[in-house]
């Protein structure tokens, strides 16, 4: 499959923050060479591991975020390794790195030092970007969701309970999405200009524009939002939409307008579940504006909906509501998406072979269904240093003696 990034060579300096961007480049057909420290990327040591046994080749978070890449171990603290990286960058199309600002300049590996490769797109994805008073603060993903504003809106309606950060390294994902957008713009430009450039992305900047209504509410109205359990923070206290089901799960019962057909189907469903509907069958609610107003502001329809959901299973709530045109969702565990016919019909899962465990695992294809873009995992993540020899000999033209000397000096492994 010819992917959108086919023919592009990417050098990625291993880091947990940038690896998802590199994965999406690899999934799009780029050759991604990940440069790792001799003991492996921090991404190999975070877990979870196969059978919970710490092993840099068996870290599942690393597996997911590094599909199709090549791994080269280089200790870039050492000068000979810096020279090798400089040579790789002389031929690369894209470089992604997340070191603390100033680190690579001290090694003679900043953009200015390698810009003789006129086509190189050099992207730095760091916590705060390359400048500013907070540039050198110590952060992790949760710290970004705190400082960037996500947490202030997320959590529980009880004002004494802590705000909550969602799991899954989402601040880093947001940073990667913008980094890759900018890289793709730069590649688009390079097709005509032939010129690369430097890209500076701060994760804090990205998070700060990613909180939907919170910023406009403050900017324009001077309002601070109340957190609401499982749903949008709001300038007013509003009733819950995250409602418990009969089977111990939750449904996100999005409040929306209900057409006549939907309304009557909903009432029938309530009757089936023994939810009293006599008041709701009052002819005045046959007028859509009246029931919409009641649903938004009153308690009558809300109470009935709450009872209906409490008397139904989550899967039924989702399927039955959606089939009558109501956009309710089941709060599903990620893994509960496996085996659903819809995703199989869309050919969503891609089996990736894992000799380590003697079988293949279904990975998500990616966000887009589009054969012309050709985005999907291109094989498993590499073992530590799996491609060191190949890159040193074939890309950098070193012979066995030179490699042995570098290894003896602790520059490669």
């Amino acid at each position: 499959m010819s992917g959108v990034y086919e023919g592009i060579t990417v050098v990625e300096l291993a880091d947990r923050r940038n690896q998802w961007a590199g994965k999406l480049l690899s999934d799009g057909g780029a050759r991604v060479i990940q440069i790792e420290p001799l003991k492996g990327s921090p991404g190999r040591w975070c877990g979870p591991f196969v059978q919970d046994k710490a092993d840099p080749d068996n870290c599942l978070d690393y597996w997911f975020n590094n599909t199709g890449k090549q791994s080269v171990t280089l200790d870039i603290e050492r000068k000979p390794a810096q020279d090798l990286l400089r040579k790789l960058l002389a031929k690369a199309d894209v470089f992604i790195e997340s070191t603390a600002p100033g680190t690579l300049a001290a090694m003679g590996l900043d953009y200015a030092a390698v810009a003789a490769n006129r086509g190189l797109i050099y992207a730095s994805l760091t916590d705060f970007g390359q400048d500013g008073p907070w540039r050198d603060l110590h952060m992790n993903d949760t710290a970004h969701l705190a400082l960037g504003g996500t947490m202030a809106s997320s959590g529980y309606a009880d004002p004494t309970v802590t705000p909550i950060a969602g799991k899954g390294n989402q601040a880093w994902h947001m940073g990667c999405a913008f980094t890759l957008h900018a890289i793709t713009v730069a590649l688009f430009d390079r097709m005509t200009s032939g010129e690369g450039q430097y890209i500076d992305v701060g994760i804090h900047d990205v998070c700060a524009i990613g909180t939907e209504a919170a910023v406009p509410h403050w900017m324009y109205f001077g309002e601070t939002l109340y957190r609401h359990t499982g749903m949008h923070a709001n300038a007013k206290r509003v009733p819950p939409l995250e409602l418990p089901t009969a089977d111990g799960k939750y449904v996100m019962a999005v409040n929306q307008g209900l057409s006549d057909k939907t309304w009557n189907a909903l009432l029938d469903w309530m009757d089936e579940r023994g939810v009293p509907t006599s008041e709701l069958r009052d002819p005045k609610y046959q007028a859509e504006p009246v029931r919409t107003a009641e649903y938004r502001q009153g308690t009558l329809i809300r109470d009935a909906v709450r009872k209906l959901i409490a008397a139904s299973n989550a899967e039924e709530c989702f399927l039955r509501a959606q089939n009558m045109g109501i956009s309710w969702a089941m709060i599903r565990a990620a893994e509960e998406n496996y085996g659903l016919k819809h995703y199989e019909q869309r050919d969503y899962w891609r089996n990736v072979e894992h000799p380590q465990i003697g079988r293949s695992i279904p990975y998500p294809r990616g966000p887009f269904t589009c054969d012309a873009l050709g985005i999907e995992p291109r094989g498993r993540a590499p073992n530590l240093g799996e491609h060191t020899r190949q890159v040193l000999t074939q890309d950098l033209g070193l012979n066995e003696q030179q490699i042995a000397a570098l290894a003896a000096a602790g520059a490669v492994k």
Partner: protein
Amino acid sequence: MSNAAHKQKGVLSGIRVLDFTWKTVGPWAPRLLTHYGAEVIHVERAGGFDDHRFAVHRSLTVDDETPNHVQGGKKWYTDPYFNTLHHGKLAISLNTRNPEGIKLVEKLIAKCDAIVENFSAEVFPNWGLTWERIHEINPKIVYMSSSGFGHTGEWKGFRSFGPTAAAQSGLTLASGLPGQPPAGWGYSYLDVMGGWMGGLGLMQALMQAKKTGKGMYLDYSVTEGAMTMVGTFLLDYQVNGRGTRRADFPPGNRAVFPQVAPHNTYRCSGNDRVGQHWWVFIACETQVQFEALCALMGQPQLVLDPKFATNEARVKHQDELDAIIGRWTRARRRYDIMRQCQNAGIIAAAIQSAEDRVEYDPQLQHREVFPIVQHPELGEVPYEGYPPKLSRTPAYVHGRAPTLAEHNDYVFGELLGMSEAEIAGLKERKVI
């Protein structure tokens, strides 16, 4: 006056996008192109409007709860979030229920490089605009549909808002305190991040089209995109049989992988403007950081306590450790804690509200994350900009959001070459 989208040259100057998006998740994708000079034509229903023009917020300029659109003479439609989502775009009105309106859409398709929409799956085909038809009119065009579940498969007709996709993907469940209902995301994370991913797909498609000279159809499912953001959980289930629906998950703000402690939010002195407590997040990922924290708290002996001496021990005794740290932070001010911890090399961050970020955050001010744009009715107003800084082809904020049907004359006159009389006729027949 013409909006600024075609004033300043950018990487995407000459790229024209027909934008049928509305609500939140759709508009982001073309908005991200405006920063590079693409001409984005936002289409609104003739006689109506994108409901984000008024539905989300009340008027800024009139002390009346009535939405802007019914207030006589209010032509600017100053809804804040519309301004954020559509700045730098052009706006036209078009009646797609009228066959003449569809003819105009087809003429515009012939002149555009991309067409984007986030309607339900049946809307475009109902207008006769199947991919086959779009492709027939313009073989080079990129067509992207954004939807909750995609345009094929048994759920293709299902409706979705940001919270729907977050719930279905597994993201909502992966946020919360153990034993409590899911906390989820306090806004439509997938309308924002999902919108950015759509922007990425659109940019990728434009590049691929430039490379191959061929158009393509991009079926973007926001839920499928979100499932690529919880991949580690999927693999943990596949390999270790460990699901995310379990008693000890999610663990609030504690760390999952790697397990490190301390890693939590701690209450500080004070409350925000609506009475919610103030909190600070603190984490120690290394032994050195933990030793520094103990010293900072004036309790250096904690490091020697077998319950806290190693990370493994600390993880085991997190409740007790969190209580100790919480007692230290309780009477202190959140930014003081953050500064002292950071000076000692410890990960620490205040839970910042929108007010904190917009008014006081020195980093965001330095990086000009909220650029000021001139608005005809409001004067100088800040917007949420485009974060990446490109050295040679920088992104710009190309100006305010368009007013309703502001560019009908430019688009129908200049672009489609219609005469004033023809345009007047369209207006008369309520086509535009």
